[in-house]
């Protein structure tokens, strides 16, 4: 046998072991036929379909999409960005929950998070800027949908779902705003709550229900916390599922113009 250079030897070994691992019973039990991670995957039209069709991805994407729809300049990826930001916010938010108590300790917890937890500051910043960004991106997504006239039949109802999603996004952001329990948080939320109290007839009741009292206290903090980490995420996920499902059932992306 010819003498192999070190590089060739490495290539041979790594390729072989990779193949063996990918052909193992264990790996094939995870990756369904057509997955690029299975041994023997080759790029063919059929396999390209299988990558989507035979995987959990099929819940999100059809096998084929309109050619104009994949141009970045059509959707600007704004809907996808909204969804992705939501995922990032969920992950960073769960991480923040490890260090946060919605009580009198809230402010101290945030301070401790920023000063004595590894990456605490970074993750808090990501969660906060990400939330601002999500409000912006959802709004831009709505504008892009409007300018394309993409709310017209048969997509009318998906627009309605979208409006609900916009409001849920705002509520999520607003309830989160109070949680650091600093002067910025409490007074911004007080201003918001006062706006709600101008509702005709039962304005005072709305504010009382929102604040769990007449003004922002730690009872409000707990209420906003539960709404922020549990209630609104739960609701928004349901509406997102309907939203994505309707995008597909309404015949995929709209257009071309």
């Amino acid at each position: 046998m010819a003498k192999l250079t070190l590089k060739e030897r490495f290539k041979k070994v790594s390729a072989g072991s990779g193949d063996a691992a990918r052909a193992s019973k264990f790996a094939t039990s995870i990756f369904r036929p057509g997955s690029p991670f299975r041994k023997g995957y080759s790029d063919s039209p059929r396999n390209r379909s299988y990558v989507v069709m035979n995987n959990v991805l099929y819940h999100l994407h059809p096998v084929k999409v309109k050619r104009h729809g994949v141009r970045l300049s059509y959707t600007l990826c704004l809907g996808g960005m909204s969804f992705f930001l939501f995922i990032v916010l969920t992950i960073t938010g769960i991480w923040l929950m490890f260090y946060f108590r919605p009580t009198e300790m809230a402010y101290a917890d945030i301070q401790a998070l920023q000063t004595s937890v590894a990456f605490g500051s970074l993750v808090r910043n990501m969660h906060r800027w990400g939330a601002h960004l999500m409000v912006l991106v959802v709004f831009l997504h709505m504008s892009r949908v409007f300018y394309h006239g993409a709310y017209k039949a048969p997509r009318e109802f998906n627009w309605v779902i979208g409006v609900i999603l916009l409001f849920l996004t705002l509520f999520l952001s607003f309830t989160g705003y109070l949680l650091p329990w600093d002067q910025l948080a409490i007074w911004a939320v007080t201003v918001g709550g006062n706006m709600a109290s101008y509702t005709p007839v039962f304005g005072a009741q709305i504010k009382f229900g929102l604040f769990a009292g007449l003004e922002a206290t730690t009872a409000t903090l707990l209420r906003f916390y539960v709404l922020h980490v549990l209630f609104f995420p739960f609701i928004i996920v349901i509406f997102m599922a309907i939203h994505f499902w309707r995008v597909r059932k309404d015949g995929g992306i709209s257009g071309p113009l």
Partner: protein
Amino acid sequence: MVDIPEHLLLRSAEARAKALGITVEQALAEMKGESAPTVVDDKPEVIEVDLPTPVEAEAPAPVETPKVEAAPAKAEAPAPVETPKVEEAPAKAEAPAPAKAATPAPPKADTPEEVDFAPEVKVTQRLLTVVKAKPIQKAASEPVDKVNTWPHLMLPEFISLMAMMAFLILLSAILQAPLLEEANPNITPNPAKAPWYFLGLQEALSYWDPQIAGVMIPLVIGLIGFAAIPYIDRNKENNPSKRKYAIMMYTFFLAGAGTLTIIGVLFRGPGWNWTYPWIDGIWFDDLLDWIYFE
């Protein structure tokens, strides 16, 4: 060509063999392109026949193909009904005889056993309908130009996600989120500002009656009005040049909301008085680190 799995091929070959009355091997060979396809005479299955007098029923002019022997054109007396049947004999299909095409008249043949159903009963049959061979499924939609989701959609998606993630991490590494003194209900900051996405509203509140600006705008215009857009705008066009009015309205909305928000964020100071950010500074704490950025 895409390689079709053997078992699927076999299954469709069986179906084809059954439909055409040929052998499975023959069908398989045809599907693989190893032998010429069997051609089938596609005349209607129902023809009109006058009874009871025995007649010489004329079968519709047989289509002559090189490979298939045409059905017998004439039936003799005993047969009350003439059913032109597709020639199914595999032997004939297998023997291509191009010369046959030129043969003027197919041989007469008796087919009593094929039509011999209750010949003693004198029935009158009428033509009810002619069933034409048609596909049972109709393609309702027009073909669209489509591409595979993988990789043509998922790769750009993945790249945008990575770009967004990089942007967010970079932003978070550079800009510190604000954290002021601990909440104190007894010290009201001046001005007290809502989060930026409500600042347009707060600005509007300072002009109009709070019941209008605080409730009517967000609830009636925001929630109900926006949700109703698709049901109000009945114009079916989505070409921008054919929906100028809608685009104008939305652009007005964007400009108005944007202006109010910018005023609320940058141009309002203590007592909600007008301030210039470059002269008096900015009263908006979410921007603290942006302002004092070294």
